[in-house]
């Protein structure tokens, strides 16, 4: 199947998300689609599969002008979209998931289970699945869940499969298995649009690459004719060196020490230090246990063993409230889930962790509260009409700044930032980096979990690499390379 999208435009309100984008997919091609978050990749794919409609432009499928009404129609036509957050049903079985919304029934409306079983099994066997049809989806690894999604696509006779960040939660073995399957399907003539942030995957798997930036397709070329630097430059629109601010921090004394932290089955014997004024990055693949280590330090999860020491004082964090008392702040990975009250105002979100500091006998000093909030809005340049704007109406970058403002306002001396720039546009990213710089200049210690390797290399002083719940190496950032980090992150060793 051949796809040609031409001059696609799309705006959400005043926000021009796509500005005349062209995109072509040849039959049986594996086409990488890269770009920063907010560059317009997802919007483009959503338009292709009929999830949303374009404002103007046209789509041709095999030379036929086409406009899919919705995702189901696109799927029936042979284009399936495997989303990053797989839309599956954890409490239902593999079989039920594979036939959801397209169940085979007889004339009485009763399910033809034996027929469905035979069909499902055929595709899963083809993909080499090692689990049964009656397994609950939630009991499968993410890699196996993905296999179910692929089997589902094949069952609908997909000629084009769109995969959004398919490897972000996979182990190295699962990634290799996925690549093998993708290449096999390519031999059968199936085309792939492969959205990913991981350079090495692009070069290992893809034929062609298209890079998007700020709603424009800035580069389309054969993978053989380009390199990492060129792609990064196309993605961010400038050289990497100028994208990250020059670090001007003075590294001070050890502020927080973690000694022998363990949580059964999650992480084991984790040791590290953070000095005041230092940014220590935690790199690794998703699911390596980085977030879980920090959750335990912050008192969100239970710690089986280990000590946390802040400035020579042994502390115990049984709850976030205790951790906050010890000067720790936590910008969680998923701001909508654990960071923000989306329907509340900016003000109500920002002062949530600091209420005690302007409350006397339980009564809030409204004036102090307001001054406090306004100061932070200004300092973090949160773009809003007033402190009473509802957080939900803000852009991702500004929402993230609201979360940061909350912790800066709470006076955190150790700030844990979990994927601080995920879902944040390029401009706001730089502002967040500048802010991190400013904070470390004031002596705040920052722990930054990031899956974005350029960010890790651009912003940190030292890097702890986590693999399967253990720190497999600590690198000094100025001597570190992406290759070294990836080697450690996938369980390899660096030869000294």
């Amino acid at each position, binding site marked *: 199947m051949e796809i040609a999208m031409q001059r696609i435009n799309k705006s959400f309100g005043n926000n021009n998300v796509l500005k005349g984008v062209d995109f072509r997919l040849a039959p049986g091609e594996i086409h990488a689609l890269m770009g920063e978050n907010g560059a317009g990749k997802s919007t483009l794919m959503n338009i292709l599969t009929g999830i949303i409609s374009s404002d103007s432009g046209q789509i041709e499928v095999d030379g036929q002008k086409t406009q899919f009404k919705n995702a189901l129609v696109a799927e029936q036509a042979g284009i399936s979209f495997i989303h990053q957050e797989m839309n599956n049903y954890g409490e239902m079985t593999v079989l039920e998931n594979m036939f959801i919304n397209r169940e085979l029934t007889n004339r009485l409306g009763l399910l033809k289970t034996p027929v469905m079983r035979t069909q499902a099994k055929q595709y899963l066997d083809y993909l080499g699945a090692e689990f049964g049809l009656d397994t609950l989806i939630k009991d499968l690894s993410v890699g196996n869940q993905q296999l179910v999604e692929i089997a589902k696509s094949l069952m609908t006779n997909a000629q084009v499969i769109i995969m959004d960040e398919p490897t972000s939660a996979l182990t190295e073995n699962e990634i290799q298995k996925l690549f093998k399957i993708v290449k096999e399907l390519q031999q059968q003539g199936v085309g792939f649009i492969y959205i990913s942030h991981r350079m090495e995957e692009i070069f290992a798997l893809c034929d062609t690459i298209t890079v998007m930036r700020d709603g424009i397709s800035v580069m389309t070329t054969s993978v053989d004719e380009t390199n990492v630097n060129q792609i990064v430059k196309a993605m961010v629109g400038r050289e990497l060196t100028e994208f990250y601010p020059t670090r001007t921090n003075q590294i001070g004394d050890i502020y927080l020490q973690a000694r022998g932290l363990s949580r059964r089955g999650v992480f084991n014997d984790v040791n590290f230090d953070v000095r005041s004024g230092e940014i220590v990055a935690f790199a690794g693949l998703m699911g390596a246990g980085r977030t879980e280590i920090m959750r335990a330090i912050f008192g969100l999860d239970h710690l089986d063993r280990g000590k946390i020491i802040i400035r020579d004082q042994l502390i115990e964090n049984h709850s976030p409230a205790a951790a906050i008392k010890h000067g720790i702040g936590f910008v969680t990975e998923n701001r909508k889930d*654990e960071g923000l009250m989306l329907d509340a105002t900016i*003000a109500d979100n920002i*002062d949530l962790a600091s209420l005690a500091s302007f409350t006397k006998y339980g009564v809030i000093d409204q004036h102090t509260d307001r001054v406090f*909030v306004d100061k932070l809005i200004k300092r973090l340049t949160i773009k809003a009409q*007033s402190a009473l704007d509802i957080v939900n109406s803000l852009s991702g970058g500004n929402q993230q700044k609201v979360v940061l403002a909350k912790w800066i306002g709470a006076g955190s001396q150790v700030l844990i930032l979990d994927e601080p720039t995920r879902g944040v546009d390029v401009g706001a990213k730089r502002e967040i980096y500048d802010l991190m710089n400013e904070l470390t200049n004031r002596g705040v210690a920052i722990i930054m979990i990031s899956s974005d390797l350029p960010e890790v290399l651009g912003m940190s002083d030292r890097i702890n690499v986590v693999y399967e719940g253990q720190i497999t190496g600590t690198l000094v950032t100025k001597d570190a390379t992406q290759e070294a980090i990836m080697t450690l992150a996938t369980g390899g060793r660096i030869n000294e």
Partner: protein
Amino acid sequence: MNNAKSKQFNVMDFIGKLGPVLALVFLIFLVTLLNHSFLDINNILNLLRQVSTNALIAFGMTFVILTAGIDLSVGSILAFTGAITAQMIIAGIHPAFAFLLGVLIGAILGGINGMIIAYGGAAPFIATLATMTIFRGATYVLTDGNPITGAKMTNSFFFQVVGRGYFLGIPFPIVIMAVAFIILYVLLHKMAFGRKTYAIGGNAKAAFVSGIKINKITILIYTLSGIMASIAGFILTSRLNSAQPDAGITYEMDAIAAVVLGETSLTGGKGRLVGTLIGALIIGTLNNGMNLLGISSFYQQIVKGIVIIIAVLIDRKKAA
């Protein structure tokens, strides 16, 4: 939860905020048109006195619903504390002291709800559905299914004044309702406790990460609901001059209706106490008005239900 007053005047916003008020004004207008005696001062005071019990329960319920919870046990707490207070008075305990003990028991029963929900992680609906049955059963056990009354109740000035007395010409239950409103208004809108209440309903996980002790606050909120129910229980016992074992049945529904009519969101995090007061007044006006117009109580229930549905549909439409 205003931190600062927005200077811009927004008409839609204004109407949106006034929605329940407009409904109440319309209702008063309609009833008055059909029967002029509605606006008699005696009828208004009577109406407010009728409203007070429901309003007190609904104020507590507002906090509960703001956390995305629900308290179905308020009617049973009302009956249980009413009965035990009556028994204490008959046993010779001073009515004022018995009142305080009754409120304390109401607080404990509410606290039990809170603990089952906070520590046990039970869904508020199920937890309070169960305690509703338990507390009601306990009331029947306590009273043997009979009303409790006696000379010590009839002869006590304190006991009589709470339900039937006047303060500066205003029936005492209305005074209690007004004082409770002011105290809870400050608690909800001026104190950190209120902000934490909203935060739990807005996003409990984010609230927890921000260091809010959500278990403690949740327990306190259900405790408050129990306290409000027991105060209402004492007023009711005084008004009837006896504690009825089946007092307060379906009171939870009127309280929830008042909260919802006052535009507090059942999903938590959004709403205001003044809305609940207006919601309770709407229900009171409906009841009182239909009585004045001689509409049978069978039809009254149907009308009340329809009004609630209309209110919720209008609210939905506005949200969309």
